[in-house]
């Protein structure tokens, strides 16, 4: 079946602009995660959705970052007033939930954001 998809695959924007990054999770996956991977680093957690609500947004670096998942499926990560330091690969993952052990997170290919 289809995996996690992310669009666009690449985004170049100017400093100060607004960007939206989209994630389509695997159908039926209730949990959705956003991570950010800077050059030479491992992915860093940003926010987690269970259904439509953000269950944990402790990883969002500041209030320029916001994410939504209005219908419990597709999610959009929104970044206002972009800064050069926001340049990174933004990864989305989805999983089932429930039970007593964590469910495997399936990752998308990522969106490479470059702020010039």
């Amino acid at each position, binding site marked *: 079946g289809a*995996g*996690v998809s992310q669009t666009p695959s690449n985004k170049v924007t100017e400093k100060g602009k607004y960007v939206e990054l989209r994630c389509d999770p695997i159908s039926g996956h209730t*949990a959705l*995660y956003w*991570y950010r991977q800077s050059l*030479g*680093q*491992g*992915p*860093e*957690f940003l926010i*987690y959705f*269970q259904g439509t609500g953000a*269950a*944990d947004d402790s*990883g969002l670096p500041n209030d320029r970052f916001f994410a939504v998942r209005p219908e419990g499926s597709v999610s959009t990560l929104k970044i206002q007033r972009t800064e050069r330091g926001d340049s990174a690969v933004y*990864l989305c*993952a989805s*999983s089932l*939930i*429930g039970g*007593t*052990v*964590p*469910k*495997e*997170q*399936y*990752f*998308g*290919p*990522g969106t490479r954001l470059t702020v010039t």
Partner: protein
Amino acid sequence: AQSVTQPDIHITVSEGASLELRCNYSYGATPYLFWYVQSPGQGLQLLLKYFSGDTLVQGIKGFEAEFKRSQSSFNLRKPSVHWSDAAEYFCAVGPSSYMEYGNKLVFGAGTILRVKS
């Protein structure tokens, strides 16, 4: 706070040689541990995971990892490396307490594996 250390940024091995990638974690209880592989332009793929029980876990593509509580380590091994194994490998830790609502992962910085023929 949870943390993961992968001491080796780059490792180069000859094709057919054995491989061990190191991972050390810091966590207050027994964690859930994972190894992911990332090839250029590809998403992260789960190789294997440890939750409980047998400390030697088998994964896909011939990889295995051993959980050693006394050393806070979860090293990844493969007896014979293939050229197609060249990629970046990430160790990750997740909380082991019962979580009804999912499991955010903390990743190490990664180890880039190069395979020479």
